[in-house]
């Protein structure tokens, strides 16, 4: 692997700028003549806009322009779209209501954009935004998805009768019902997956710059996928044709899904830049982020898991209501369907599965993918019901899982997914050993003496990463292909630029992608530059989400490297008068195997560009591009074990041990992979113990709209984690890697809740398991 090659624990190249305060985030960008924007936002969850009077605001100091939804509509800017078509079980297409970048006649959630003010300073823009007089006629609102489905609930969009976007199903309903009817045991649960706010530490921002001379737009934006942003803004929102629109996502301070989607503010800033004749920058404050970033999760489900007399799973039946918020965000429709229900088989051989999902409009912020997107919801539901079943059946949770593990691959589940490879037993054993599962009862006794209730819980997750192949997702309704592109440019002096459509916002691509090159050509990673995040530099790409940069993005780089290597070998063979098949690349040299003949890498590169002596007919230069479209999803899986101590006096939970054993296939940089797992676990523990977006049911106001009320996991809420990996290679891509970005967030919530419910002896506990909830559940348990 070399000290900088595949598998090496290389310190990150990008860190140098971040630890010295030299990172370049959107809010750090300054363009000559740049002005500042503030949005006027709806204070109501649901209201008709009767009148907007901007006169007073326009007269405020420093104000350059005040623009509204009517004007953006008049200029032909299109509505925001959801890019994944889902059909209901009756065959009808999903019911998408109109989402104007700024509301024209109706607001549907608190924070809905109504107007933009552009002024000399941010302070002046905000002062003037308050002076915009909007006359609203308030309407009844609904924040809860189950309530929104009820007769008589307030209606959000004329297109969606009864607020129902789709009523979708997967699997064999009749077979599932039949298996449940003759089951020896059925475990039934009501499972709520709490709504989360992603909270990347960098708030969203956009800087729109219209260049009149060139009739060209540039948008700096906090995006995980600048090319998709350009495509969507061009093809659907009519901002500008693609060749007249450059989108740059520079350093981006975390995404976790929330920066995949194209938001109104980016569109409006670009458009306003032309209308106002100045570059326009908008930066969200944290409360604006809480109100308007796409939220995650928010499912309410009923689940039944059936067993035969031998404790083998025979059927799983799921009925889920998914809250979509006020508008359909870019990939919202795919989350509770193809990213959720297709994973309901988990690691288990379950012959019959049926899931029904209803997607519902409510007067809340739009809901879309957040770290894990659908897979955490599936895992939480399944792993809680499995653990609860083990308790009901009186068998060990590990044994019940073991008995039902899938052991032969490939395995076709009843819910579309075909698992290519896996070894669940290995992860389970590794986790149990690391956690000293066998010694738990002793620890429980010891804790009891100290007045604490100790519990242990387990979760065996599977996920699907890579979000591909294009033809498959296309047949399921995706509006885009989900391949990735790469270009490898070897410069005449031998340094190398790798252009990728993947985007790094914390994942460390500048390091890991460079490692691929170092591994291949034996050059130092410092001679490799990774170029990403700019549509003028990289031709096309699909961006980073769904743990796809490794499995898909890196595979594209590998394909391009293959081509570069092939050409380099041809040139080397020609220069050294050897057979092409005898050329090997080692330590930065191209050698003729078994001889002492060699050409250093830099000399080879120079030869390619001087072109004085190339094989006949060969084009000069050394630059190759590739697109990679995978053949399947990848299927990382693992086992997480959480051990907690509950203080019976207060209900407070302390996580005393957290063990993660993941199978990610081959690994490029273990240090970075571990970091991804740590972060994912923290978000999973956050969901389980601390975090929850809470809308007031009567007013539709978001009550958790700042860090005063929304509990972010802090250092003292978490333990150090014990993480390890096993490495069953993925057969579906050239590197054999699976993806690791979301696993932590997927596997951990059920492990935590299973541990707490084990400690308190009450399975009826919802996330976030705050101290009060645990205290109440404990009281309820002791009453019985």
């Amino acid at each position, binding site marked *: 692997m070399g000290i900088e090659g595949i598998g090496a624990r290389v310190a990150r190249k990008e860190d140098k700028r971040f630890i010295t305060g030299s990172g370049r985030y959107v809010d750090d960008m300054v363009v000559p003549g740049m002005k500042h924007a503030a949005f006027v936002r709806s204070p109501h969850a649901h209201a008709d806009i009767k009148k907007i009077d901007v006169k007073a605001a326009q007269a405020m100091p420093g104000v350059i322009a005040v623009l509204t939804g009517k004007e953006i509509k008049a200029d032909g800017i299109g509505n925001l779209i959801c890019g994944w078509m889902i059909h209901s079980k009756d065959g009808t297409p999903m019911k998408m209501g109109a989402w104007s970048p700024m509301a024209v006649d109706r607001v549907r959630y608190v924070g809905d954009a109504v107007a933009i003010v552009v002024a000399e300073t941010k302070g002046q823009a905000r002062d003037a935004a308050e002076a915009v007089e909007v006359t609203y006629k308030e309407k009844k609102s609904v924040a809860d998805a189950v309530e929104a489905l009820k007769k008589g609930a307030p209606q959000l969009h004329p297109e969606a009768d009864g607020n129902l976007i789709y009523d979708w199903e997967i699997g064999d309903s009749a077979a599932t019902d039949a298996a449940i009817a003759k089951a020896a045991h059925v475990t039934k649960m009501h499972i709520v997956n709490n709504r989360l706010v992603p909270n990347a530490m960098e708030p969203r921002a956009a800087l729109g710059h219209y260049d009149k001379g060139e009739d060209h737009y540039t948008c700096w934006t906090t995006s995980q996928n600048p090319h998709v942003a350009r495509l969507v803004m061009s093809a659907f929102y009519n901002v500008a044709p693609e060749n007249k629109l450059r989108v740059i996502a520079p350093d981006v301070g975390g995404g976790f899904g929330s920066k995949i989607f194209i938001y109104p503010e980016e569109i409006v800033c670009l458009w306003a830049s032309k209308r106002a004749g100045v570059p326009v920058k908008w930066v969200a404050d944290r409360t604006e982020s809480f109100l308007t970033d796409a939220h995650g999760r928010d499912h309410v489900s009923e689940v039944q898991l059936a067993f035969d007399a031998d404790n083998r799973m025979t059927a799983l039946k799921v009925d889920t209501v998914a809250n979509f918020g006020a508008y359909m965000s870019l990939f919202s429709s795919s989350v509770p369907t193809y990213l959720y229900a297709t994973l309901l088989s988990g690691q288990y051989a379950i012959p019959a599965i049926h899931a029904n999902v209803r997607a519902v409009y409510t007067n809340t912020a739009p809901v879309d993918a957040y770290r894990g997107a659908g897979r955490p919801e599936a895992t939480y539901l399944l792993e809680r019901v499995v653990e609860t079943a083990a308790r009901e059946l009186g068998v060990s949770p590990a044994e019940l899982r073991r008995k039902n593990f899938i052991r032969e691959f490939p395995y076709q589940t009843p819910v579309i997914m075909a698992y290519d490879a896996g070894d669940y037993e290995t992860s389970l054993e590794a986790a149990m050993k690391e956690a000293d599962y066998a010694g738990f009862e002793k620890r429980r006794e010891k804790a009891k003496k100290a007045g604490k209730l100790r519990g242990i819980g387990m979760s065996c997750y599977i996920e699907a990463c890579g979000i591909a192949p294009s033809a498959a997702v296309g047949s399921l309704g995706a509006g885009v292909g989900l391949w990735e592109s790469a270009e490898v440019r070897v410069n005449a002096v031998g340094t190398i630029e790798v252009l990728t459509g993947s985007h790094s916002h914390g994942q460390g691509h500048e390091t890991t992608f460079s490692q691929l090159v170092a591994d291949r050509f034996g050059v130092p990673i410092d001679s490799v530059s990774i170029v990403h995040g700019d549509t003028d530099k990289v031709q096309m790409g699909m961006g980073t989400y769904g743990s796809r940069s490794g499995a898909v993005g890196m595979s594209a780089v590998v394909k391009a490297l293959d081509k570069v290597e092939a050409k380099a070998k041809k040139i080397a063979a020609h220069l050294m008068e050897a057979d092409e098949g005898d050329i090997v690349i080692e330590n930065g040299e191209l050698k003729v195997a078994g001889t002492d003949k060699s050409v250093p890498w830099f000399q080879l590169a120079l030869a390619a560009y001087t072109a004085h002596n190339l094989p006949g007919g060969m084009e000069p230069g050394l630059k190759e591009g590739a697109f990679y479209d995978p053949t399947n999803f990848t299927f990382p899986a693992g086992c997480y074990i959480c051990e907690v101590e509950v203080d019976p006096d207060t209900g407070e939970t302390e996580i005393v041990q957290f063990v993660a054993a993941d199978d990610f296939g081959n690994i490029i940089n273990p240090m970075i992979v571990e970091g991804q797992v740590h972060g994912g676990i923290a978000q999973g523990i956050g969901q389980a113990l601390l975090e929850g977006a809470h809308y007031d049911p009567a007013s539709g106001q978001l009550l958790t709209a700042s860090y*005063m009320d929304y509990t972010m996991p802090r250092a003292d809420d978490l333990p150090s984690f014990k993480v390890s990996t096993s490495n069953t290679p993925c057969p579906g891509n050239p590197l054999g890697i699976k993806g690791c970005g979301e696993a932590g967030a997927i596997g951990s919530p059920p492990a935590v809740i299973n541990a707490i419910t084990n400690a308190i002896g009450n399975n009826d506990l919802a996330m976030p398991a705050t101290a*009060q909830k645990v205290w109440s559940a404990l009281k309820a348990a002791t009453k019985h």
Partner: protein
Amino acid sequence: MYSTNYHRASSVADAVKLLKKADDGKFVSGGMTLIPAMKTRLAAPSDLVDLRHVPELKGVKISGKTVTIGAATTHAEVAANAKLASVCPAICNLAAHIGDPHVRHMGTIGGSIANNDPAADYPAALLALGATIFTNKREIAADKFFTGLFETALKDDEVITAVAFTAPAKCGYAKFPNPASRYAMTGVFVAKAKDGVRVAVTGAGEDGVFRSKEIEAALSKKFDASALEGVSVSAGTLMSDIHANAEYRANLVVVMAKRAVASANG
């Protein structure tokens, strides 16, 4: 933040003069609550009169059991004062757990009690310690000082200069922080002095900090956590919010009281 006019006071008299000239001025000390409130446009003083550089407001004085803490003394300074810790460790411990290290470097005792946030820590301490609040005009007993949510007995142009108390024989503080804000969701300060036991509760009351008669009665009999076994407090006047309902807070009052007593008894 709305526009405001900043003034730096050099003395208490100067501060009062500056404030009188303002339309709707406010004193600012550490600013750890006021500046964030202004940022979110929840507070909009026309003028800010900065007390941070007034020398006479700073410092901790200890004479025998009498402790005087200058109003502009930061939480970090209170927390780290070894002499104070030798007479009243509970107050140092309390200060060491207000906000976070950065907030403690700026936030002051005067600013905290003048704001009287219903979830702030100091009000519980001062009430339980039977402290006296000194202003540029008068002395106010803690019992009379905290008058409601974010309300105090202070007049507009009145500046807190110091707080003083007699260190009791024993005292202790325990809080259960709100998981998000880290303010007290319930905090209980217990003090056993010559004239009896005083117990003050913050973070839990609908009207801000209050004395718990039930707990005082129990601890007066025996100043020990065991005296609180089976004691319950009424949830009637306690706060309910998205983080904790009144019933849970009532439980926390008793649990925190037990822990505070245990800490007082060391």
